[in-house]
């Protein structure tokens, strides 16, 4: 660095650039945010992505449909089961297979459990983003119980690979219903602690209320879905509007707020955990009897054409688009991942806030970086 002489004035318009990431505690992965600051005020945020790009869409073109499932686990690893389900539903729709009721119900329960554990991790890491490190351990402590349920039934904790075209890999474990019931009872009894430590805390409320407001118009035009979009009043719940699996037979409320600030994005997730528990409670005690999978052909070949399926992951709308040329491999596979789209709004809503707010806003959008990069 060449030495400057003191009497040369510092250019005030020159932005103070800070690289948050690729390795940074608050980006939850290898996201790089190039932040322009003025003092501590954020002027511009440019996300740089691609540090964990694995080319999942391209890899899918050389894999058969059952083999694709295990790759989708690794996109949004916190909604692994829902991603599996999305591909399975699409393939089943293309092949026009009727899926047993049992499979539909089990998939729904598993999807809601996935949503709960994802939001628990959100709660945990959001507390840590704001500096309350104890939240992280309480959140993970409760999440372990869900992961145990997954492990017992599917053999995997995060990477479940439980759905397959035509049904499920295995039947549920005999302990499954008891464990889920126990978990819901336990989690209902412990949720007040979440409120006592974080939701009601005056520092937390000061840090989040009114920060990073996203208006309904912007949410729609940027395509922000999931709890982040619903906190702005964007009614975008696929489970409600375009029900798949067993969502058409359960009663639940779509969590909607109108404020659209960081606090309500957080609150939307807390409320969704409660709704998910309601859904599970409606289904868990009357899982219909029947086969857990349909007998499929050894090699699946989708008829030539284009197939589309959307599901609601824990972070928003996941769309799976398959172009098939009649072969056993897809000709083109496209995922519209919710995190990638949600990331686009970050710059818009974090301008003119402090750098500490940027962390709060980015945390409230709840990114999973492998899903952004795929």
């Amino acid at each position, binding site marked *: 660095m060449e030495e400057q002489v003191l009497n040369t004035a510092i250019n005030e318009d020159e932005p103070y650039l800070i690289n948050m990431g690729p390795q940074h505690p608050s980006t939850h992965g290898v996201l790089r945010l190039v932040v322009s600051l003025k003092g501590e005020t954020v002027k511009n945020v440019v996300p740089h992505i691609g540090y964990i790009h694995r080319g999942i869409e391209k890899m899918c073109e050389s894999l058969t449909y059952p083999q694709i499932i295990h790759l989708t686990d690794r996109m949004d690893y916190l909604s692994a089961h829902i991603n599996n389900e999305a591909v399975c539903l699409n393939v089943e729709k293309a092949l026009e297979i009727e899926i047993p009721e049992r499979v539909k119900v089990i998939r729904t329960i598993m999807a809601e459990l996935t949503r709960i554990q994802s939001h628990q991790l959100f709660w945990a890491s959001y507390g840590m983003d704001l500096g309350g490190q104890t939240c992280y351990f309480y959140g993970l402590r409760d999440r372990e119980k869900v992961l145990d349920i997954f492990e017992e039934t599917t053999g995997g904790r995060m990477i479940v690979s439980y759905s397959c075209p035509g049904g499920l890999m295995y039947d549920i474990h005999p302990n499954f219903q008891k464990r889920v019931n126990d978990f819901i009872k336990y989690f209902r009894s412990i949720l007040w602690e979440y409120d006592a430590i974080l939701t009601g805390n005056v520092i937390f409320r000061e*840090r989040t209320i009114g920060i990073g407001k996203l208006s309904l118009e912007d949410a729609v035009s940027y395509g922000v879905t999931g709890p982040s979009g619903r906190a702005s009043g964007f009614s975008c719940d696929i489970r409600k509007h375009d029900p798949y699996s067993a969502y058409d037979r359960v009663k639940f409320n779509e969590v909607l707020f109108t404020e659209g600030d960081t606090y309500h994005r957080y609150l939307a997730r807390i409320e969704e955990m409660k709704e998910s528990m309601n859904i599970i409670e409606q289904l868990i005690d009357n899982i219909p009897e029947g086969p857990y999978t349909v007998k499929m052909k050894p090699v699946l070949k989708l008829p030539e054409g284009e197939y589309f399926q959307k599901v609601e992951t824990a972070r928003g709308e996941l769309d799976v688009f398959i172009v098939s040329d009649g072969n056993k491999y897809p000709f083109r596979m496209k995922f519209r991942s919710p995190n990638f789209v949600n990331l686009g709004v970050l710059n818009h809503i974090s301008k003119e806030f402090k750098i500490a707010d940027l962390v709060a806003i980015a945390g409230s959008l709840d990114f999973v970086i492998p899903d952004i990069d795929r």
Partner: protein
Amino acid sequence: MTSEPWWKIFYDFTPFTKSIDEGLRSSMSPFWAVTTEMVIVGILFLLFYAVVGLFLVYWERKVCAFIQNRLGPNRIGPYGIFQTVADLIKLLFKELIPIKNADSFLFNLAPYIVIIVNFMVLGAIPFGKGLHAIDFNIGIFYVIAVSSMSVIGVLLAGWSSNSKYSLIGAMRSGAMIVSYELSLGLALITMVILAGSMQLSVIVEAQRTGWFIFKGHIPAFIAFIIYIISGTAETNRGPFDLAEAESELTAGYHTEYSGMKFAFFYLAEFINMFIVASIASTIFLGGWMPLHIGSWEGFNKIMDIIPPFIWYLGKTFFIIYLIMLLKWTFPRLRIDQLLTLEWKYLLPINLVNVLIMAFLVLMGWHF
């Protein structure tokens, strides 16, 4: 030492220290006697510093582990008590990474400023009856004066490492400490009004009949809370750890430090906490005075059995636990909220509190 049993020393160190002083003065010239005493006191403080620092790091890790339903360090030694010693040895052997383009003189100087300031304050704290290195007649004022310098080390560290995160951390820390110094001082002044003296030994002695937090009832309690809050802020801890805000600035002002230089900052933070807690226990909770309740003679006798420095350590560690509980419960404040808290809430309350306390003392309404 006279005919008294040896364990009496734990109740009153005055004869012990006096006999050492007299022995030294009689055997050598005053110059060498003073020098020897200084060296002894210096070595004792160094030892104390290291032991307390290491123990506090261990204690912090255990407290946060228990709060978070974890076990904490449990591998080295029984209950992991030697874990921090092992960590220290590791840090000693670690490479000190030289920073290119850093101002190396200031970069190396910064940890020492923090440590030296720590030592200067420690010297003025009464640890027990007769365990008191310097007893200034302006004791509290001296403590405030010296501890206000520790921010310089932080500022230098942040600026000289030539890192953007460090610079932001240092600036936050500067703004924070400069403003919280005010309410810290005012909270102490409230108690000075009640005590009528700034000398720490006199303040402790004045609490023989009752601790100031009980004597001065409501204003003293408010002052205590304000002191704990601003003391936590002063030490860059707890919900006020903006200067090293992990999720925002990676490690704030000591991002670029490594090895032992980092350990200095780390230890200094814990010793700072110890200092804040011991000042609080001296001024609000009676220092090394046992708990006495009015005319309960039997109860007071039992309380007297516990040696004074145990009382002192007990009170200090109670306050340290309180400060740790704050840190491990609350999310971090934002910089503007931090300043709002100080200027909009703590300072006005504090000023009114000083007036109320003065009025109480004037009317003789305290106990």
